[in-house]
């Protein structure tokens, strides 16, 4: 029966059946097949269908069903049940965290993953490829595909997906032993970074230490050319610094210094001078907190040298300032002023107005504490002028206050001298000052000192 109908379809079909040449077939089953009782209605769509491309079941499904369902079915019919369950789990987790966050939160406003065809297709593509590789036992390809997924989701709202796939990829990389652990090292570096982003310092530390061991004596590098070894060292340096910061906040200086020393060692190993310098600076500052000025100066000088080598004026200034602090607490005032002068010099020669202003203020304070009021006044004036040029109100106000008090100090001695001697001329000067409220002492006294 089907054969006869296909034959009929292949023949040229007229609008009305040919009267001269009656077709036996159509007459024969015209009564048995209820459909063929309506020749017009039956034949016309057939004719149309042969001209137009037919619509397959898949295309109908694509049109009728949601993107999510189509993606799932597409994966399942290929037998990719792990991909399906992974995708469902990921979506389920997103929904859970959305519910937990409640309406009004950021995640509540975001669009669900199953409404974004682009992301779904990417997920489908790489997940199925990873699963195919897993079936074949090629864990390196599994890892590669999962890494692709992790790198694909770089938008801030998709960070959690990226994190998830980095973690999954670590598990796959651990099962791949052919390369001596390079992929594992790479994966742990990624996951450790994820932990750092999430603020889970302890887990990050574990992973970085593991990575440090793995990369011992190896020259592995990532795709971008970054050496895994140095990444491990840098990461550890960061982790130790963070841990030390926590200790410093609770005033546990001894363990903090120990931790910072470790960080310094790691920074040294990482081979990045800048990081090494900063680590040294932190150690120095920590020693200052305990009062061990010798050690502090040693580390600060190290930092200074590195800054000199790197031509980092900012860093040099920072170093000078810190060293001054050490010298001051040791009581070496002359040296500390020298140091501050260097600070000012460096800042000036590099055009760092802000640092220069800071240096002037520090110098002014140092001079006041040693009783050199006039010098203090000039420093403060400088500082005031720079602040005015910078247009920073807070700095300006500070400078004004300092300058004012320094001037007052410098004046009060001369004023009291006049009051003490109380000769006629002194009294006249005092009256003149009272009347005009102008600085009359400086001129006269300066002429006196000059004479």
């Amino acid at each position, binding site marked *: 029966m089907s054969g006869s109908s296909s034959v009929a379809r292949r023949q040229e079909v007229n609008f009305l059946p040919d009267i001269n040449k009656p077709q036996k077939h159509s007459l024969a089953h015209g009564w048995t097949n209820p459909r063929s009782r309506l020749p017009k209605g039956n034949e016309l769509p057939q004719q149309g269908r042969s001209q137009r491309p037919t619509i397959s*079941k*898949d295309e109908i499904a694509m049109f009728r069903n949601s993107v999510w*369902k189509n993606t*799932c*079915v*597409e*994966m*399942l*019919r*290929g*037998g990719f*049940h*792990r991909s*399906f*369950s992974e995708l*469902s*789990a990921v979506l389920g987790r997103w929904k859970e965290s959305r519910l937990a966050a409640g309406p009004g939160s950021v995640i509540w406003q975001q669009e669900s993953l199953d409404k974004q065809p682009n992301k779904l297709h990417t997920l489908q593509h790489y997940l199925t490829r990873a699963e195919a590789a897993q*079936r*074949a036992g090629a864990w390196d390809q599994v890892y590669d595909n999962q890494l692709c997924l992790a790198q694909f989701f770089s938008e801030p709202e998709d960070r959690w997906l990226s994190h998830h796939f980095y973690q999954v990829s670590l598990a796959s990389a651990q099962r791949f032993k052919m390369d001596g652990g390079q992929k594992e090292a790479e994966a742990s570096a990624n996951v450790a970074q994820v932990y750092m982003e999430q603020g889970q310092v302890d887990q990050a530390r574990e992973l970085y230490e593991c990575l440090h061991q793995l990369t011992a004596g190896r020259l592995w590098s990532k795709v971008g050319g970054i050496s895994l070894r140095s990444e491990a060292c840098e990461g550890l340096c960061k982790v130790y610094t963070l841990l030390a910061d926590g200790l410093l906040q609770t005033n546990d200086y001894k363990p903090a210094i120990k931790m910072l020393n470790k960080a310094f060692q790691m920074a040294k190993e990482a081979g990045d001078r800048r990081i090494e310098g900063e680590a040294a600076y932190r150690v120095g500052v920590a020693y200052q907190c305990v009062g061990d000025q010798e050690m502090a100066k040693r580390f600060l000088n190290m930092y200074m040298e590195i800054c000199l080598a790197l031509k980092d004026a900012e860093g040099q200034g920072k170093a000078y300032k810190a060293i001054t602090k050490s010298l001051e607490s040791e009581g070496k005032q002359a040296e500390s002023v020298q140091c501050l002068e260097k600070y000012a010099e460096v800042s000036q020669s590099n055009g760092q107005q802000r640092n220069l202003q800071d240096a002037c203020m520090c110098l002014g304070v140092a001079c006041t504490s040693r009783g050199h009021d006039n010098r203090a006044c000039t420093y403060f004036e400088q500082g005031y002028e720079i602040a005015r040029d910078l247009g920073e109100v807070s700095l300006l106000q500070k400078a004004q206050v300092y300058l004012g008090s320094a001037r007052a100090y410098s004046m009060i001695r001369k004023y009291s001298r006049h009051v003490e001697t109380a000769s006629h001329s002194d009294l006249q000067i005092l009256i003149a000052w009272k009347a005009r409220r102008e600085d009359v002492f400086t001129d006269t006294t300066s002429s006196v000192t000059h004479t």
Partner: protein
Amino acid sequence: MNSMKGSKSKVLSLISTLNPLANPRGAKKLCELCEKPSYLQCTKCRVTFYCDSEHQQADWVGIHEKVCQLLIPIRTTVDFHSLQADRDNHCAQTLQRQEELIEISRAVAQKSLFEGKYQQSLPASQLSLRCAMNVYGPRALQLVPAYLLLAEANIGLGSLAQAEEYLSQAEWTVMKMPECSHTIRHQLHRNLGRLYAAKDNLEGALLHFANDVYYSCEEHGLENIVTCGGYFLMANVFTKQGKMDIANSLYTEVASTWHSHLTTLLDTHTQGSRMLPQLLDEAQQAEADQMLRAMLEIQESSPKQDAAQKVLVSHSLAMLWFLGGSLDKALDFGRQALQLSQLVPDHSLAEPIQILMQLAAERDQHPTNAS
């Protein structure tokens, strides 16, 4: 055999002949199964008619024995009630009885299907379908379960054209009702998949099984034994296609799901609540047994045997039979699992197997405790 003969003679004694020409005008008495003019009548209810004794017998065995008396109030015409309230009451009662009948016949059909008695399940599912049509109309969603039962029986019997017809009906009904539940969709697609697999249209079968898994996952969750059934059927299709790696991956999934399910069941069972039928009904038991055995056979026939998988499956079977109450089989499979587990590097399963064996041995010695 004797009992069979006895029941046969008993069945034959239940019919009386009927002359169609002697029927009152307009009243057509049609055969319960084939709807042809009837010549026999059931003497117990007097409301059911048959064209020959063969159909009467099939109906008796299939469903009539259980519903004979229930049919009387539904099919006898009652006198006209003078009060509207009485009429309403009568209508409501009939409706309720018919709904009960639908449910009973559906359950009976389902049970015989799980036992593999396809022919026997046909009368019951037909009755269910007819009642549902009376109550809900010819195009209602409630007809779909009956259609699916009929289709499944027909696939089992190998009459695929018939099965296709029923499934097309079901599919059409479902398509028209977008609010249709996931359970029905999942069952529909599972049966469509079976049909396509039987017709050797493997790609089509895979598409339907994929839909089946999707819907059952929406309904029951991912790690569920119902969803697992879909995976198993899918794996069979992949085996037919010769894609053994995919099939194996699916079989592993099925095995581990059943294993974890049975382990939790065993835990709840040993912790005191001993209601077995509530834990796992007969149908599920039969399904699990069939699937796990099939997987064990596949493992044994495949060139590279996965011992871990075999341990998992035979342990599952041991648990299944322990829960099902047949301790000999449980011990058999347990021993097998224990032997195999020695070959596997991962020994985590050895301990639960031994515990199970001990439990089974204890039960075996004190059978009174078990019952």
